[in-house]
Structures are given as structure tokens and as C-alpha cells.
């Protein structure tokens, strides 16, 4: 009874409210900049525009969504085709920009319709479903609240570590830029001197050849 109740809950929570429109063959990407070991949960639902009803209706003929997730090194960490409504989860292993791309598996070339995509992406602590946690671990209200606080602290710590890492990388970039500017200005002075020297040498031999000096 309880299990069936929760499965229904999960089904309901699949229907998210924010939506946007894309062409049937279009691809839409979203960027999530996240620390490492962070869980990302995405839920989506796709509907297709029906000219007869003049409204968006749930797709019927096996139209699904292809979800592709790339990590900061451009490596694919998730690439799967799901049904018209679904949920995808991934955990980051390297910190940085993760790109989540959605496109339908439609093969329509002409007369491609409009799709309405409901999407909800939750990161880290927001992705945890406390209803399920409570049901699984049999926690009291206070325990559940404390659990949420712990998750939040963990998230803040991860984010801070990531920020420290990025600050370090940024500083390294700045320092190397500084070095390169220094070397480059020296090199440019050398180029200037060499050019001047070659000019003089060339002109001297020219004047001597013309018997002007």
C-alpha cells in the first residue's frame, strides 16, 4: 500500500511545471556547473502539438527523448533514449561545466512539429527526495530536518572546495598570463632591435653599392 502510494507520488512528481517549446528535430542544451560527486536529477515530459486539437497532447507513437550528458572534458557520461516522460540521474566525477542536451528521437525531416518539453533539473541537496528518505529510514520529523541540514552543509562544503579549486586555477592563469606578457614584451623588443639592425645593414650595403658614401 505504502509502496504503491510512493510510486504514484513519483509518477506525479514527474510532471514538472516549467516548460518550453522546441522543434521536433531541434536540440536543446543546458549547462550545469557543479562540483564533483554531486547528484543531478532531471525530470521531463514531452508533448507534441496536434493540429486537430490545436493544443499540445501527450505523444502517442513512441516518441521519446534522447538525453546526453557531457562532462567538462567533453566525455559522454550519459547517453540514453528515454520514453516521452522520464527521469534521468547522474553523478558528476569531475567538477566543472556539465552539458545536458535533450533532443527527440523523431526521424521526421519534413513537416516537423512543435514539441513542448517540461523540464526540471535539481542539483545536489535539492535533488534528494525527502519523502522517500523518510519512508525508507523511518525518521522522525526532527531527524528528517537534521538530515536535510547535513545534506545542505555537505553541498556548501563541496561548492566551497570547488570554488577554491577554481580560484586556484584562475590565479594560475593570471600568473602565467603575466609571465607570458613579460616574455613577449622582451621578445618584441628583440624583434624591434633585429629589424632596426637589419635595416641599417641593408641600407649601408645599398649605399655602398650605389657609391653614395
Amino acid at each position: 500500500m505504502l509502496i504503491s502510494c510512493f510510486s504514484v507520488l513519483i509518477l506525479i512528481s514527474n510532471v514538472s511545471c516549467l516548460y518550453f517549446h522546441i522543434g521536433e528535430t531541434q536540440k536543446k542544451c543546458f549547462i550545469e556547473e557543479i562540483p564533483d560527486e554531486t547528484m543531478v536529477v532531471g525530470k521531463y515530459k514531452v508533448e507534441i502539438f496536434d493540429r486537430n486539437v490545436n493544443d499540445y497532447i501527450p505523444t502517442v507513437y513512441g516518441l521519446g527523448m534522447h538525453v546526453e550528458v557531457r562532462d567538462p572534458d567533453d566525455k559522454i557520461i550519459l547517453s540514453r533514449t528515454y520514453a516521452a516522460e522520464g527521469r534521468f540521474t547522474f553523478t558528476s566525477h569531475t567538477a566543472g561545466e556539465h552539458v545536458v542536451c535533450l533532443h527527440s528521437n523523431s526521424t521526421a525531416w519534413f513537416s516537423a512539429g512543435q514539441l513542448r518539453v517540461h523540464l526540471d533539473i535539481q542539483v545536489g541537496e535539492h535533488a534528494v527526495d525527502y519523502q522517500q528518505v523518510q519512508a525508507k529510514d523511518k525518521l522522525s520529523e526532527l531527524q528528517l530536518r537534521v538530515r536535510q541540514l547535513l545534506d545542505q552543509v555537505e553541498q556548501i562544503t563541496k561548492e566551497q572546495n570547488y570554488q577554491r579549486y577554481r580560484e586556484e586555477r584562475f590565479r594560475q592563469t593570471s600568473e602565467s598570463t603575466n609571465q607570458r606578457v613579460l616574455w613577449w614584451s622582451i621578445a618584441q623588443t628583440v624583434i624591434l632591435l633585429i629589424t632596426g639592425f637589419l635595416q641599417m645593414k641593408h641600407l649601408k650595403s645599398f649605399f655602398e653599392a650605389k657609391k653614395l658614401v
Partner: protein
Amino acid sequence: MEHFTFILALFATLFCLTYSVELTFELPDNEHQCFFESIEKGTKSTIEFQVITGGHYDVDMELTAPSGQVLYKDVKKQYDSFTWTADASGIYKFCFGNEFSTFSHKVVYFDLQVGDEKPLMEGMDSQAKAMTLMETSVQNVHEDFKTAIDYQTHFRLRELQGRSFAEDLNERVMYWSIGQSVVIVLIGIGQVMVLQSFFTDKHKTPSAT
């Protein structure tokens, strides 16, 4: 069982009523992207957006109520935040436009918060029953953490903006210095050639006459 279905129905509406989403997306040049959200009457909502990279870091934003009334409209904003209370239930539409730029591709972040946070368990509302001191302080800590996470997000975005600007600048400086070296060498050769032509002409003119 009826009780359960009632809770389920309540939860279903709750899911729509209380909602928060953060998305970062790419906005190509000459394009606009719209998002829609269904909001119940009387719900307080906040939208925040920020341009992370591209061009002059600006974007057009327009928020339209279900009646077609424009609630917010601004052009070429780098970042902004807008809070409103829905005076009608329905679909609210917000669009980001990049029509004014012909070649700069932008990355835009937005955070939409509709209503209050979803309670951890059903029936666990702060108004529903008196909380113990412990629960209240846990709730306060939770709120503070939420603020901390929020600030972190903003800080991260500012940092990202700064970094992308620095990288852009670095690239431009590099190309310009390569260009400058080429210019030096070309001027060097040009100077010699011009000088030679002067003397060649002077020499030739008297010998011709």
C-alpha cells in the same frame, strides 16, 4: 484509501504550487527563448537572471501575465531580479531575447522561484502546528543555509563572468601582439624600400638629364 487519494491530490497541486528551478542555457545570436510556468493566483514568485558570457553580457527580458499584460520588460540588462504576486492563475511566460546582437552567442542563467518551499513531509507546515524550540532553530539554520547556497551561486556566476572576461581579454591581447610583431616587421621592410626608392630616383634623374 480515500484519505490517501486526497493527500495525493493535494500533493499534486503542491508540486505545481511550490516550485523552484535554476537553468543555464545558451542563447545564440538573433534568437530568443521563451519559458512558461503555470502559477496559481496569489503566489509570490521571483525571477533572477544573469548573463554569464558573450558580447557585452546583456540580454532582453520580458515577462508576460496570462492576460497578455507585460509585467516586466527591459532591454540589454546584465542581471536583474524581479518579484511579483500573481493576480490571476495561468501560464506566465518569460522570454530572453538576443535579437540585437548579430554575432555574439550568450549563456544566460535564470532562477525562478514560485511560492514557498515545499515542506519535507505532507502536513508538515510551519503554520500547521506549534514547533518545539529545537525544530524552530533547525528551521532557522535551514533558512540560513539556503541563503548561503544562494550567495554561493551568485558568487560562482560572478566568478565565471570574470573568468570568461579575462580569458577573452587574454585571447585579444595575444592576437593583437602577434599583429603588432607583424606590423613591426612590415614597417621595417617598407621603410627600407621607401628609402631605397628615394635614392634610386635621385640618382637616376641627374644621370638621365
